[in-house]
C-alpha cells in the first residue's frame, strides 16, 4: 500500500505540471479566437455598452495578457469554466451533464476492445506462426485500417437498415418511462453499435500488441525453464507468457484513453449519442470556443485520472514497480 501511495504522490505532482501546460494552451487558443468572454456573455444574456465596459473591468479583460491569464487560472481554480453562449448556461454544468454518456460509451468500448483484443491476442500468440496467428494478424491489420465512423455507418446499414435488429439514435428511447433493468437493457441496445464501432478499432491494436508481446516473452529464458519443469502448455501460455505480455497493454490502456475520447467525438456524432463528443461538435458549429476549450480541459483531467488509475492497476500487476532499482 505504501508503494501505491508513493506512486500516486509522484504522479500527482507531474500531473499538476501537465495540467498547467494544458491550461496555458487553452488560454492561448481562447486569446486567438475572435471575441472574448464578455462578447459571449452579452450575446447569450444581453446587455448594453456600459454593461460591457463594466463586465470587462470586473472580469479583468481590459488588463494585460498576464493579468488576464491570472484571472483565467483563478476562475478555473474556482471550477468556473466560463459561460456557454450556445446553451446560455455555465460551461461546467453543460459538460457535466453530457459526461456520463461519454464515460459509458468509452468504458464499454475500452472493456470490449481490451478483453476481446487480449483474448484474441492470446489465441494468436499461443502458437506463433500458425495459420490462426497469421489470419488474426492480417485481419486485425485490416480492422485497424477502418475509420470508426465509417464502420459505424456500415454497421447501421447492416443491422439497422437491412436486418432491422436495432433501432438508432440517442442513448435510450426518449420518454419511454422505463426504469431499472428494462431501462438498462434499452440503453444497452442503443449502445451496441456505437460501442462496437469505437471498440473494434482498438481491439485490433490490443490484439496486435498482445501477439507481438507474447512472441517476445516466448523467447525468454523463464519460459524455457517452465518447460523444463514440465509445466502444462495451457498454464505456460496463460500464467507465464500472457501474464507478462499483458503489462505493456495495460500501459497502452492509459495512453489510448485520450485517443478514445477523441474517437468518441465522431462516433457520438454518427449515432447521435448526447455525450461530450457530440457537445464538442455542437460547440464548434455554434462557434462557442470557451465551451470547446472547457471540454478540452475536462477531457485532459479525465485522461489524467484514467492514467492515474492505470498506473495503480499496473503497480498491482507488476510487483517490480516502486521497489528499489525500479525500471519504470
Amino acid at each position: 500500500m505504501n508503494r501505491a501511495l508513493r506512486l500516486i504522490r509522484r504522479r500527482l505532482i507531474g500531473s499538476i505540471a501537465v495540467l498547467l501546460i494544458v491550461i496555458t494552451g487553452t488560454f492561448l487558443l481562447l486569446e486567438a479566437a475572435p471575441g472574448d468572454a464578455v462578447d459571449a456573455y452579452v450575446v447569450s444574456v444581453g446587455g448594453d455598452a456600459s454593461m460591457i465596459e463594466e463586465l470587462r473591468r470586473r472580469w479583468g479583460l481590459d488588463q494585460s495578457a498576464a493579468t488576464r491569464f491570472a484571472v483565467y487560472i483563478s476562475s478555473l481554480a474556482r471550477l468556473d469554466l466560463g459561460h456557454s453562449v450556445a446553451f446560455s448556461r455555465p460551461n461546467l454544468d453543460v459538460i457535466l451533464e453530457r459526461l456520463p454518456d461519454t464515460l459509458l460509451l468509452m468504458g464499454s468500448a475500452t472493456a470490449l476492445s481490451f478483453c476481446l483484443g487480449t483474448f484474441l491476442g492470446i489465441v494468436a500468440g499461443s502458437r506463433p506462426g500458425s495459420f490462426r496467428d497469421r489470419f488474426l494478424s492480417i485481419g486485425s491489420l485490416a480492422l485497424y485500417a477502418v475509420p470508426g465512423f465509417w464502420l459505424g455507418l456500415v454497421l447501421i446499414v447492416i443491422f439497422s437498415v437491412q436486418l432491422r435488429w436495432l433501432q438508432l439514435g440517442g442513448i435510450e428511447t426518449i420518454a419511454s418511462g422505463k426504469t431499472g433493468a428494462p431501462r438498462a437493457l434499452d440503453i444497452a441496445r442503443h449502445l451496441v453499435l456505437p460501442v462496437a464501432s469505437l471498440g473494434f478499432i482498438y481491439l485490433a491494436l490490443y490484439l496486435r500488441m498482445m501477439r507481438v508481446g507474447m512472441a517476445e516473452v516466448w523467447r525468454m529464458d523463464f519460459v524455457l525453464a517452465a518447460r523444463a519443469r514440465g509445466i502444462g502448455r495451457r498454464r505456460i501460455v496463460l500464467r507465464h507468457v500472457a501474464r507478462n505480455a499483458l503489462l505493456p497493454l495495460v500501459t497502452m490502456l492509459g495512453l489510448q484513453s485520450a485517443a478514445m475520447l477523441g474517437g468518441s467525438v465522431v462516433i457520438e456524432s454518427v449515432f447521435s449519442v448526447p455525450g461530450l463528443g457530440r457537445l464538442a461538435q455542437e460547440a464548434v458549429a455554434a462557434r462557442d470556443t470557451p465551451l470547446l476549450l472547457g471540454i478540452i480541459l475536462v477531457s485532459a483531467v479525465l485522461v489524467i485520472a484514467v492514467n492515474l488509475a492505470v498506473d495503480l492497476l499496473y503497480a498491482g500487476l507488476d510487483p517490480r514497480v516502486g521497489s528499489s532499482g525500479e525500471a519504470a
Partner: protein
Amino acid sequence: MTTRLSIGNLGVRYRRDGQGVEALKHVDLDMEAGKCLAVIGESGSGKSTLALAIAGLLPAGTKFDGSIAWPGLGHAPLNGRDIGFVFQDPSASLNPVLPVGEQVAEVARTHLALTWREAFGLATDLLGRVRLPDPEAVARAYPHQLSGGQKQRVAIAAAIAARPSLLIADEATSALDTIVQAEIVALIGRLVTEDSMSLLFISHDIALAAQLADRIAVFRHGRLLEIGETGELLRSPAHSYTRSLIEASFGPAAEERG
C-alpha cells in the same frame, strides 16, 4: 550398477542464419543411477546442447540423430517429473511477476496430483530444504526481492519438487560469486545424496566439478574428448587439452581460492 541414461551416437545440428552449425557429433555416453557425471567444456563445446537434448528442449528446427535411451524408466521421460533442470542464470529462469512459492508449487501440482493448498505446503517445505531462511516469507516474495544465490536455491527447489531421478545443473553456479558458488555446489551435492538422484553437472570449471563428480567427461568442439573416473582423469588425463583445463583450473585460481 543400473544405467539411468544411455546416449548413443548423438548428433545435433542447429540452423543459424541459414547455415547449419554442428553442435554435437557422435557422442556416446552412459549415466549410472545415483552417480554424478560432470561434463566439462568451454562455451561452444556443445555441453549445454547435450543438456537441452536430454531434456528435449532443443529449439524447433534442430536436426537430431542418434539415440537417448532411458533403461528401466518404461516411458518417455517427463520434464520436471523425471528430469530436474537448473539453468545458469537464476534471474532469467524465474518468472518476474509470479511469487516464487507459486513457481515451485506449480511443479508439484503438475506432477504429483496435489491440490494447490498441498502444493503450496510442499513448496514451503522445499524452500526450507534448500536452506532458505523463513520459507513462508520467501514463498510470497517475488524474484526481484531475492539475491542471485537465493533465486538459484528457489530454482533448485522447483527442479527437485517432483523428485526426479535425474538432476541436470547447466552451469548452475557460474553466474554467482565464489562463496555463494561453493554453497550452491554443496547444496546440490547434499540434495542428490538425500534423494539418491543422478546428477549431470555441466560446468567450464573442472575444479568445481571435481568436488561432486564420480566421473568427468570433457567436451570440445561438439565431441566427447575423453571420459573417466574423477581421480584418474585428474591424475593422468589422456589429452593435452584436458591437462591444460586442469592446470588453468587448479593452478593460480586454486591458490586464490585457498
